[in-house]
């Protein structure tokens, strides 16, 4: 029934699975990544690819800080097709309330050592002449960047021992078109609950595959995004649907990623559908236009009425885009959790780990997630406080 014995199996080749794979390999583990579809073809490919600091999740600020620190060094080595652009973020305010919000935010960020500056309407005209004059000011975070996440994931999975700086670096093997149908801990029955450290445990984890023999592994990391509940039925990850559009090439039209300050307010205003202004200039000169949030099942249908709302919102901020041509509109699903925090850590049973549920911040926080999870797997005490991310909280909540 079972065949190979593997050191680590990671289910999912998205940015989170890839980051965890690179991290573990850097620490000497041999990693097998299993992907049922295209490489990094899920939420990683469907989203915007922003690497940015958000201060609206205080309990995640450490995860963000560590992630951004690691992004800065990763960006140095990324190939051109990862499309790294350190364009900075402009959080734009449309009224006094948002302007005051921006000032408070500037202060809070400053105290955390995050580089930022308040931008007057006049400076704004110069920085982004295409913005509507109704914009009252902005907060600029110059170190934020945008990337093309599928090729970042591809790069992370190309990990090799040269240049890793790790004496006992491991390997990464990626297999595409492999569908995992279940993961069960401690199949030998010999293991005991105690040790989470690799090597101290006798049990193995069984990874059951469709149309192929199971794989036994010492550790299994489920980083399968919205497909996670299919493998771990109690692991509550919800698909939060979003719409995005990309335009033809208009080089030089925008210079920053621009987000409305109302974004977080809109994004988390209850369970209803919401749209927010969030636009990125891509290195090709194309503009990526977003975004919407809704719980609407897993139907990929592009909803014209929601697109209409979204485009209206965008034109309020960027009236010049009225005639910009849209090449494509698509939908995707963010892996969301009931309390808006990712699931990072040990699942029920030894050797089963979870890293998912990052919703819209997965690109940014993938690298910190990898560090945290690897620390937990190593039995080291992590830099990032792990308790708030303990995945078992969703299991407890539902059972």
């Amino acid at each position: 029934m079972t065949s190979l014995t593997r050191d680590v199996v990671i289910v999912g080749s998205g940015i989170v699975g890839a980051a965890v794979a690179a991290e573990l390999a850097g620490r000497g583990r041999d990693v097998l990544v299993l992907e049922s579809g295209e490489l990094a073809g899920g939420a990683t490919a469907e989203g915007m690819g922003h690497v940015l600091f958000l201060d609206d999740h205080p309990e995640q600020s450490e995860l963000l800080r560590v992630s951004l620190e690691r992004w800065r060094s990763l960006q140095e080595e990324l190939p051109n097709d990862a499309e790294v652009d350190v364009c900075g973020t402009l959080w734009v305010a449309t009224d006094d309330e948002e302007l005051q919000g921006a000032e408070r935010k500037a202060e809070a960020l400053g105290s955390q050592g995050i580089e930022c500056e308040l931008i007057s309407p006049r400076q704004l005209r110069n920085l982004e002449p295409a913005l509507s004059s109704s914009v009252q000011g902005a907060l600029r975070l110059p170190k934020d960047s945008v990337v093309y996440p599928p090729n970042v994931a591809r790069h992370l999975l190309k990990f090799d021992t040269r240049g890793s700086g790790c004496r006992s670096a491991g390997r990464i093997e990626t297999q595409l078109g492999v569908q995992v149908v279940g993961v069960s801990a401690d199949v030998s029955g010999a293991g005991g609950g105690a040790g989470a450290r690799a090597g101290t445990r006798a049990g193995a984890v069984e990874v059951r595959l469709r149309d192929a023999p199971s794989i036994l592994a010492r550790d299994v990391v489920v980083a399968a995004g919205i497909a996670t509940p299919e493998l771990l039925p109690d692991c509550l990850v919800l698909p939060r649907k979003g719409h995005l559009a990309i335009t033809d090439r208009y080089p030089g039209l925008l210079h920053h990623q621009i987000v409305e300050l109302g974004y977080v307010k809109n994004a988390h205003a209850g369970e209803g559908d919401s749209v927010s202004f969030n636009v990125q200039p891509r290195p090709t000169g194309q503009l990526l236009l977003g975004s919407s949030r809704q719980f609407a099942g897993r139907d990929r249908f592009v909803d014209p009425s929601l697109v209409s709302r979204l485009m209206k919102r965008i034109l309020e901020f960027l009236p010049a885009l009225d005639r910009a041509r849209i090449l494509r509109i698509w939908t995707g699903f963010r892996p969301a959790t009931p309390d808006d925090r990712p699931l990072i850590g040990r699942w029920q049973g030894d050797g089963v780990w979870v890293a998912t549920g990052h919703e819209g911040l997965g690109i940014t926080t993938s690298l910190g997630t990898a560090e945290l999870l690897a620390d937990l797997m190593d039995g080291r005490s992590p830099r990032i406080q792990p308790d708030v991310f303990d995945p078992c909280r969703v299991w407890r909540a539902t059972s």
Partner: protein
Amino acid sequence: MTIRVHIDGRVHEVEPGQSVAAVVLNAAGAPRRLGVPDGPGASGVSDVSAAACAPDGPGVAFRRSANGQPRGPICGMGICHECRLTIDDVPHERSCLIECRDGMNIRTAEDPGDRNGSMGDWSAKDRSPEDRSPEDRSPEIGLREAAGPISAHLDTDVLILGGGPAGLAAAAALADHSVETILIDENPSPGGQIWRRSVRPPHQEDRANKSIRSAIARSTFLGSTTVWDIQPRECRAHCGAWQGQVGREAYLRVRFRRVLLASGARERFLPFPGWTLPGVMGVGGAQALAKSGWDVSGLRIVVAGSGPLLPAVASSLRQRGAEIRLLAEQASRSNLLPMAAALLTDRTKLRQAVRLRMDLGGVRWRFGTWPVRAEGDGHVQSVVMTDGRSEWKEECDLLAVGFGLVPNVEAALQLGCRLSKRGLPGVRREFRGRGQGGVHCGVQGGVHDKVPGDAAGVAVDPWQETSVAGVYAAGEVTGVGGVDLAEAEGRIAGLAMAGERAAAEEHFQSRARGRAFAAALDEAFALRRELLVPPDDAVTICRCEDVAFGQVASHESWRAAKLATRCGMGSCQGRVCGAALRTLKGWIHDVPRPPLSPVPVGAWIDDPEE
């Protein structure tokens, strides 16, 4: 009457009805007409310097590609997006679809004001926004006057997409039975590619005019109108015309009860070294541009590729004064024998064939011959041909090359229709809910089959209805078969939609004949093995994004290649490279994301009252 347009700042007098692409080609001239001596022919080697070739006027580069290569039109019918120009300050206009208007300001890639251009140094990672030059900062996308869009909601029983022979025949049949119909086409005038409005009357003038008149007199024809989204759930099509096409935006929402897809076919282009040079274009593309006013007289043309279109176009270009240097069909003579036999059973077709052969008297016509690479400095100057045994060079000003046609199935895929090779059984109906009078199109978004690849058309039942109830298809979109078959299918579809099944059945025989002939053509013009060999890794496969074949070759699927390399992600949305990769790699279609054609942001905004 002439009108005046500005091309890169110079005034040109043109005829009304000429397309912008045609007048830009005319203004650029071709090397030969600028006094470059006539080449010595097949044996000669061109030593014409770049300077001697540099045309006076706007040059031959309509646009610059992502990597800065010069590009010109290839498809001539709105598919490839290579003819994009800046027109009246609006970038990315498909110049082949737009007729000249008095005072029009046209800018090519040769003009510094053109903004269709390359990404330049925009990808520089380390530059902060302050470092970017002021020229980078223009906030305008064009069009200063804010006329405001015209918005309208229309309602119809039957919506027909495509005003070629199939759509026209259906419209006429529907009109005969007083069924309300709206017929939409992206071209300014009805007739499709075969009966494209021409400055000089086409060959089939009488038949075409009769068919067009009969349909158009009794139904609503919307020309220069692009359908960019069809919502099966709401039985609603979003379409419109925007700046350039008609001089002002008009966004329309059409509600329909049933829809007929008659969106025709496009040429299949297979990549080879040099195929991106301006002056290498499709066979149908050259024909379409000539019909819309491009003066090909005096041009030395090599016509190559495959299919019955080759001699037809060669003859037509010759009548317009071009010199056909070589007519090269890739299929071998022996392969064509069964088709010749099929011709003998059809007197009209036989007569056409004989007539064509006479028109092409004196033209070098080779079988089992195909292009290996095109060469030239900024513009095609010669093409290396082979017959599998030896290679030789042909000098030319234009290489017209196309490897048959592939159906335009994108709207059908968006509607959830199944595809098949024509004649294959197994069209199943899964989408129910068809009531007495109306039709409920109940497609579940995202649930689509993997469909067969190369040249597959929309699968239809005997009444031309697709796997989605209420959605019909007729003509080349169901599989390429020519004008007679398209008309028969269009008539059947129209009559069936009008509830006249008995009358529709009268055309079954002619449809069966058409399909048999189409099958014979398929067989005869099957691509030879040598053409299915993937090109060199360095050859560009995706013209929109400048992706080389080597970059995509190692990927396991179309989507994987798109994700990793941007192949198929540009303006044409994989219409050109997707068809080539279906042929070369067997990759299957995926369901195209909306819109069906690039559309302004403003078009998506619904009226509040709706």
